[in-house]
């Protein structure tokens, strides 16, 4: 009973402290506005560090799913892309994402983005602009992380970083400006709460373009036969998935963008629950399907199922009821189980399953929003999905091709055989362990 006793005790104390306040509440610098400012900012900071942590999640997930000869490279790409994303999103990204237009297609505000000065707080916004920038930046980095997984094991490091440079500085920001930046999609009524389309599909499309243009890993699809290339470490992949799951509470929860009122914080709580339930649904469905289809439960599918569930709920984590969240996430899990082998049939080599997880589940999540949030027009959702796909595919393809036909994107066959760790990093991931 202590769980309730304590609460009432807590209220009691406040109640006593309160009355004195009552009178001046109206006139003086309303403390609750300041308190709201602090709490809103705190939400961005907590959400921000949780999403930053997702960079580690992607690094571990990918390190675990590539072969050991490419693990160091995957680690390098992940820490590098996170750093580049931060710099680019400050240099021009944020200014393109929030150009200050109404219903526009593309624009740019002053750049690089000027953070506030020491001790400066802008009560007008209701939160610290630096905390908002930080929270937005980590979303940008997430988009790049998605790409690194799909094109792993066969892209040289410098070409990859060049792609990240453009993706985080230009492609992603433009898409964001359409919706969160008050652009034309937003004007249409398109709704993407935390970025199923803006973040995940964008990353997924860029990854797909890469996979198509770069081609599969050497020996992956030989005369119609699929060569399985199992990942080097399942526990690392599992760790990465748990990290991402944790980070997602910040990703979706802090996308409420405010915690200064009891209704906002209650909504954040509801988002936590729905986010968790969608992931759980994705896991359970992936487990059941793989058991039924293969008589074995592929743990990597369960991991992808969790992530697909999370991506699916990201477009609208607030309005669904728990059963709806379970359903939305569960379908995400099913998408993974069916899409992964499908991509193999199409000879599209997606090393970590980022296309099913981020692109396909992202589309599903975006299109299903009207199901729980009736104010959202389906046509707007469809438009958003298509427009993002067209733009990102074209823009990414241009960049991938430009790299391919200039400095080249793939290592030599011998280098790829040898592994990128020896070829480009010079440091093997597990130098002491014999390969069996």
């Amino acid at each position, binding site marked *: 009973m202590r769980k309730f006793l304590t609460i009432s005790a807590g209220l009691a104390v406040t109640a006593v402290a309160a009355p004195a306040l009552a009178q001046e509440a109206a006139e003086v610098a309303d403390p609750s506005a300041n308190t709201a400012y602090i709490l809103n900012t705190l939400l961005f900071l907590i959400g921000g560090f949780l999403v930053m942590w997702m960079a580690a999640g992607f690094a571990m997930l990918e390190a675990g799913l590539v072969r050991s000869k490419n693990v160091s490279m995957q680690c390098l790409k992940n820490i590098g892309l996170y750093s580049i994303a931060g710099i680019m999103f400050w240099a021009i990204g944020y200014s393109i994402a929030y150009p200050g237009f109404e219903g526009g297609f593309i624009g740019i505000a002053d750049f690089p983005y000027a953070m506030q000065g020491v001790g400066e707080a802008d009560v007008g916004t209701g939160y610290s602009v630096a905390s908002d920038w930080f929270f937005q930046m980590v979303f940008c980095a997430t988009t790049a992380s998605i790409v690194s997984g799909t094109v792993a094991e066969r892209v040289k490091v410098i070409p990859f970083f060049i792609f990240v440079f453009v993706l985080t500085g230009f492609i992603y920001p433009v898409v964001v400006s359409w919706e969160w930046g008050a652009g034309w999609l937003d004007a249409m009524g398109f709704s993407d709460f935390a970025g199923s389309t803006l973040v995940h599909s964008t990353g997924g499309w860029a990854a797909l373009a890469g996979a198509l243009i770069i081609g599969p890993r050497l020996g992956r699809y030989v005369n119609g036969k*699929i*060569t*399985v290339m*199992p990942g080097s470490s399942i526990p690392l992949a599992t760790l990465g998935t748990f990290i991402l799951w944790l980070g997602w509470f910040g990703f979706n929860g802090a996308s409420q963008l405010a915690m200064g009122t009891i209704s906002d914080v209650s909504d954040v709580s509801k988002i936590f629950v729905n986010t968790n339930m969608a992931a759980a649904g994705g896991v359970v469905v992936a487990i059941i399907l*793989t058991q039924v289809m*293969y008589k*074995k439960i*592929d743990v*990597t*599918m369960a991991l992808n199922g969790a992530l697909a569930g999370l991506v699916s709920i990201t477009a609208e984590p607030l309005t669904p009821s728990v059963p709806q969240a379970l359903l939305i996430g569960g379908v995400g899990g099913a998408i993974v*189980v069916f899409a*992964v*082998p499908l991509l*193999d049939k199409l000879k599209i080599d997606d090393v970590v*399953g980022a296309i099913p997880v981020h692109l396909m589940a992202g589309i599903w999540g975006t299109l299903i929003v009207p199901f729980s949030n009736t104010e959202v027009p389906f046509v707007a959702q469809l438009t958003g999905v298509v427009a993002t796909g067209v733009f990102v595919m074209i823009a990414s393809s241009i960049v991938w091709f430009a790299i391919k036909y200039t400095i080249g994107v793939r290592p030599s066959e011998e280098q790829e055989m040898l592994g990128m760790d020896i070829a480009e990093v010079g440091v093997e991931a597990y130098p002491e362990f014999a390969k*069996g």
Partner: protein
Amino acid sequence: MVTTIGGVMKFIIAIIKPFKLDDVREALTGVGVTGMTVTEVKGFGRQKGQTEVYRGAEYTTNMVPKLKIEVACASAVAAQAVEAIQAAAGTESIGDGKIFTLALEDAVRIRTGETGDTAI
């Protein structure tokens, strides 16, 4: 240095199922062979590997994990050693492995320099 005493010793190479190692060791000790060297190997043969499904793609690992046991011994005990291994390593199922016998021309114990079958 040592004079080669051809043929008085044998070098036995046995490929067995990993979980049979302890049985084989005991069997060899039984016939007085206490030393041996073991190596992790992969085998190809009649026995096929497990069929696994990874991310929706089925595949068979046609390599089967095995252990290779190398035993040097005097010709006199070679036959019993081979028998002991065969008895201990058998499971009547495909993939039990092989025992190969080669002539060992000479052996040296590094520590003492002893040679021939005293070295073993």
